């Protein structure tokens, strides 16, 4: 007897439903979940197919069947060397610890294949839940995770019509704040120094920049976009060299960088080539990592409440893990501009 879940309530499928649909015993379903090596391949596949068809949520049954599961969460991040992500991780950690769970950190390093390998492994290890800042938010593997019973929360991205929780910062607003600040300071030629366009955050911040520029009635050709290979300090230095190479007429008097690492690299290159900040070039970064305030010329930046982001994401995940009636939420935080010497000059 096949049981179809009511629309909008994918959590109605239970272990019994799976057993009935697959035509096996409860014990077999339990083995598939906890001791798959004891089940024949054909039977296992039949049970797994039934689970997928029913939208069966693995963790729910796991609470009743599983003993001694790995009491941990995992955060799959884009770049463990970027303080933005480690700050977010800190927020997640605090919430995880309060719930008595360990937190594993996995670095996708911006690569889909690596990310996929981590997700597959974490699923096999049956972590309680996964937080992820995905390489590609539309990757179907993320949906699969959720369908197969591992709760997932997306951090720093939102996805339209999402079937999971997400926590993000309004990056378009952030881009606007940055460029409005530069326009207020009188700049009429600005460069947006972005990372690769494939990164959603880069696109959104650029979009905000363009909106602010257009609304101020400034000529579109005076907001130029430079694309960096990667959102890193080295790429920022390289961007600095390219800016200098522009003819004086076209050279911007200010730069809005897609993140603080790029901004720091740009700052390094500008100062070491004998020019001044903000005199020759005003610079705005994004994220407001600790090093922003510590830079040679303290960096104006757009602050993302990184720890809050992480903590809220973890709270949503823990809620989903513990509550079958959990409703998904898309949470958006508002960034704020922190103005410092790199645009204001020294008092």
């Amino acid at each position, binding site marked *: 007897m096949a049981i179809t879940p009511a629309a909008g309530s994918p959590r109605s499928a239970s272990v019994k439903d799976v057993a009935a649909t697959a035509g096996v015993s409860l014990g077999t379903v339990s083995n598939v979940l906890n001791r798959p090596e004891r089940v024949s391949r054909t039977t296992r596949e039949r049970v797994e197919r039934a689970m997928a068809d029913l939208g069966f949520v693995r963790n729910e049954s796991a609470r009743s069947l599983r003993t*001694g599961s790995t009491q941990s969460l995992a955060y799959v991040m884009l770049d*463990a060397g970027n303080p933005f992500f480690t700050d977010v991780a800190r927020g997640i950690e605090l919430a995880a610890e309060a719930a008595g769970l*360990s937190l*594993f*950190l*996995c670095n996708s390093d911006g690569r889909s294949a690596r990310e996929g*390998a981590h997700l597959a*492994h974490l699923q096999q290890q049956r972590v309680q839940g996964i937080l992820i800042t995905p390489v590609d938010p539309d990757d179907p593997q993320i949906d699969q995770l959720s369908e197969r019973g591992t709760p997932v929360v997306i951090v720093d991205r939102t996805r339209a019509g999402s079937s999971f929780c997400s926590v993000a910062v309004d990056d378009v607003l952030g881009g606007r704040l940055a460029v409005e600040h530069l326009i207020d300071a009188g700049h009429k030629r600005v460069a947006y120094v972005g990372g690769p366009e494939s990164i959603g955050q880069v696109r959104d911040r650029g979009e905000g920049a363009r909106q602010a520029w257009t609304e101020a009635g400034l000529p579109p050709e005076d907001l130029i976009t430079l694309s960096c290979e990667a959102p890193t300090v080295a790429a920022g230095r390289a961007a600095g060299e390219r800016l200098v190479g522009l003819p004086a007429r076209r050279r911007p008097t200010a730069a809005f960088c897609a993140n603080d*690492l790029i901004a720091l690299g740009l*700052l390094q290159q500008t100062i070491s080539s004998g020019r001044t900040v903000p005199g020759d070039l005003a610079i705005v970064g994004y994220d407001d990592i600790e090093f922003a305030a510590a830079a040679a010329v303290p960096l104006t930046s757009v602050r993302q409440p990184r720890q809050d982001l992480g903590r809220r994401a973890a709270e949503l995940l823990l809620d989903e893990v513990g509550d079958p009636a959990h409703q998904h939420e898309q949470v958006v935080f508002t960034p704020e501009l922190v103005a410092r010497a790199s645009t204001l000059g020294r008092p």
Partner: protein
Amino acid sequence: MAGERAATLSDVAREAGVSLATASRTLNGSDRVVRPELQERVLAAANKLGYTPNANAQAMARGSTETVGLLVKDISDPYFSTIAGGLAAEAEKHGLLVMLCNTGGQPEREKKFLAALRRQRSRAIVLAGSDTADMGHTGEVADLLTSYLDGGGRAAAISQPRLPVDTVVIDNHGGAQALAERLVGLGYRRAAVLTGPEDLLVSAERHAGFSEAWIDATGSEPTALTDEFSRDGGHRAMSRLLEDRRSNGTEIDCVFAVNDLMAVGALAACREAGVEVGRELAVAGFDDIETLRDVTPGLTTVRLPLAEIGRQALELVLGEPSAELRNKPVHGEVVLRESTPPRS
């Protein structure tokens, strides 16, 4: 291909109608020669099933990807994230995933991670920055590691040789000593040291190496100021030093912060107090963190080959096990920059 189990060597052998040994010799190479017609069957079967050796290794590990657990004290400290990067790059070549475990220097977290990694049957564990003078905790970690090793796991540490595993030993003492000698050579005579908590071995060793060398060379003992092993800690400690200098006229010409993060905090404190680093007061750090290379003036420091250290630690756990515990020493290199100009 989604959802299909990766083909194993057994699958290929079955498909080709040959023994496992024959399939292995054909695909993995061997001294024994395989008849050409059998080779062809094996290759055709491998091709048909999409067999790859890496997939086989994975499938052999109960169909799960192998991992190495890396425990670090603080992943937001570029010192640890650089080591992690070096280790991860090497792990990738071996088809291993890295599970990063941030202990925050907390013994309870460290123990939980070790227990979890063991349950997960992680192939190897590397501990970086576990160093604490707390012998009780060290003992507990040693016990957990021993049972993990008895179960077939491999482990190594990056730190001081206190645990019953192969260790990449960072010569913090020697690096700080070399720095002190170079600074004295530049003409500095009265030093202060900004240190972290004394029960943090990394900090204590650098402090000791610097102070001992300074006393040997100048006869005077550096003043010590203790705070957190962080940027804020360096800021506070330097602020106290500057205050002392202002009110008591204490003569200090050179400040050594036991890590670059503290040094950056110290530089900020100087900037705020209107003290010109380099000209009025020299400042040096330790680690040579890349993100901090934008500071002006450039910070004198001791460079450690951090990525290489991560790589070496992984080599220790993946290579041939040794009957005797191995200690691989790694030395730092003094890098002089504008924050410590020659003193006239």
